[in-house]
């Protein structure tokens, strides 16, 4: 088991170096950072001095390794705007995004799997069909529209839930959490639903089709023939086999939830890294952008690693083939 983890870890590190290369190249080649930093009034001597200070005259590979070395130490340079260290900026925004992403992923996973199983077992039933047709809305409406509609209904008309921000947050070390206050939890509801609805329908449809497929398998018929109850057949035999592919997709979706958070955060003025990124784009704040890119890359790789390990935990066949070095 340890060997597999180490092997996967090695692959992950390679991928991260590539991601770092891309975000480095963006930093280096999208516009001239010296122009961005000094403006038009600077003299040539000042420019040359800054170029030297930023290491822009070094060989490209040296600059790249400098970049990686500093990134490993969480040094992404200073934001062009406000001159704050990028790492600090992101660290202060990250809890908001992660809490939002986690809540909506949990929401999507739990309700997606439950409705998926239900619609598969009660195939053709009235409620199952109702859920299925309603889910089309989730797939076809764009995220921002769902957000705006939810705001209109629950914040403007009914006045039940806040329409923007995180509410009150509690500070725990460098982490700020909205989970511990009523207003924080209330503020989470609408953005989480907005962000998770698409994933929910996706997971539901996937679970349903996988479950229907599994229910046709011989081992399910055999389990039935052995007199096991429907409950045992559905939950002990069909469900685990259904979840293998669902977990992969759901895991990968967690990454895109973080990525999609940009839109939701804009709609709800959620103070997360997505909003930070949007603002950075407006002002061509390249250090922030490249750090964000790196962060999303790390997140994706990390989640993938986790999904792979979960896979191994669930499926004994994979475990053995990996140990025998076939994987």
């Amino acid at each position: 088991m340890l060997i597999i983890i180490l092997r996967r870890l090695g692959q992950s590190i390679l991928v991260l170096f590539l991601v770092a290369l891309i975000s480095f190249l963006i930093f280096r080649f999208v516009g001239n950072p010296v122009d961005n930093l000094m403006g038009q009034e600077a003299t040539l001597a000042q420019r040359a001095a800054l170029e030297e200070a930023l290491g822009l005259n070094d060989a490209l590979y040296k600059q790249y390794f400098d970049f990686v070395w500093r990134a490993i130490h969480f040094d992404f340079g200073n934001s062009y705007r406000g001159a704050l260290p990028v790492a600090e900026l992101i660290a202060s925004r990250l809890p908001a995004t992660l809490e939002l992403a986690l809540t909506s992923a949990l929401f999507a996973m739990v309700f997606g799997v439950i409705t998926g199983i239900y619609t598969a077992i009660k195939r053709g039933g009235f409620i199952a069909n109702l859920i299925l047709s309603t889910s089309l809305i989730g797939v076809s409406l764009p995220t921002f529209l769902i957000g705006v509609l939810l705001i209109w209904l629950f914040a403007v008309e009914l006045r039940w839930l806040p329409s923007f921000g995180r509410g009150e947050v509690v500070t725990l070390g460098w982490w700020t959490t909205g989970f511990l206050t009523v207003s924080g939890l209330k503020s989470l509801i609408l953005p989480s639903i907005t962000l998770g609805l698409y994933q929910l329908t996706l997971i539901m449809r996937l679970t349903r089709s996988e479950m229907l497929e599994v229910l046709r398998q011989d081992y399910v018929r055999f389990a039935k023939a052995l007199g096991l109850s429907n409950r045992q057949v559905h939950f002990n035999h069909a469900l685990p086999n259904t979840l293998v592919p669902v977990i992969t997709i759901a895991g990968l979706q967690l990454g895109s939830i973080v990525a999609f958070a940009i839109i939701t955060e804009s709609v709800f003025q959620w103070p997360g890294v997505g909003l930070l990124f949007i603002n950075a784009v407006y002002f061509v704040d390249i250090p922030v952008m490249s750090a964000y890119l790196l962060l999303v890359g790390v997140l994706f790789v990390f989640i993938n690693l986790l999904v792979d390990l979960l896979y191994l935990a669930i499926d004994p066949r994979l475990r053995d083939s990996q140990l025998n070095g076939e994987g």
Partner: protein
Amino acid sequence: MSENLLEIKNIDVTFKTRHGILKAIDNLSLSVNKGEILGLVGESGAGKSMTGAAILGLIDPPGRLSSGQIWYKGQRIDQAPETIRGHEISMIFQDPLVSLNPLRRIGDQLVETILTHMPITKYEAIERARKGLEEVGIDPERINAYPHTFSGGMRQRVVIALALAPEPALIIADEPTTALDVSVQAQILDLLKRLCRERGTSIILVTHDMGVIAETTDRVGVLYAGRLAEIGDTRDILTNPKHPYTKGLVASTPRIDASSFDKTLYQISGSMPKLDAMPCGCAFHPRCEFVLDKCRSDIPSIIANRAACWLLDKEESLL
């Protein structure tokens, strides 16, 4: 007969399709006696497996048991087949590679099945599971192994252990050896036969292999296009088949003896009709060498407790 364990009375299994209603099983009646091995033989699509599925109520929609009755130990079971699954009648499927849940240890699957049917503790269930594995020739130490670590033949042994675990009075074995190597087939059949004889368990053995029928069964039913063509003691059927289709089947089975060594194997010309293009009268008449006028218009029922063929009717009236 009082010995009847299972009695199938005039069942139809129909499928609703876009082209209308198709009959996969048409007016089938047969019975299984206590402790006997009944073979069901026929070509693919003749309704052998469907009969097994019908008994346990495992027909997948859109198919359904649309008429007839199934009686087991004097009780009608076709309306609530789930009540007899496992502890009264259980089933073995064709392909052992896909009969076991790949994500669960074989011991878990055995213990789950045992605990579902017996009021015993988990510890006792594990003991039973180990004993069950030993009986089918699998090292009980492998109780915690996953199905993929076993070969096909060994998996079918595990499947047999599972099917026998709830101590059923009847096992429906649906081509239990078709997916296995020839060398393993005989072992598995012997094992199944021996374990069932020891327990007095009846078997319905579904197969298309006349050799398997000859070696294993006490009685045999021949199915053709969803209808019972002939039924009787295995020895009678093999030595003196009455229905022209059975005659064809027996004649087309290869034998290894000197007299038949350089003869070409007999072949029944034509093929079984599709369900949506069933001929009028006897389903076999377009392929039959002895066809009578009556065969083209009227469906024969089982005559003289033996075969559904108008030829027998003629014989009887001549007597």
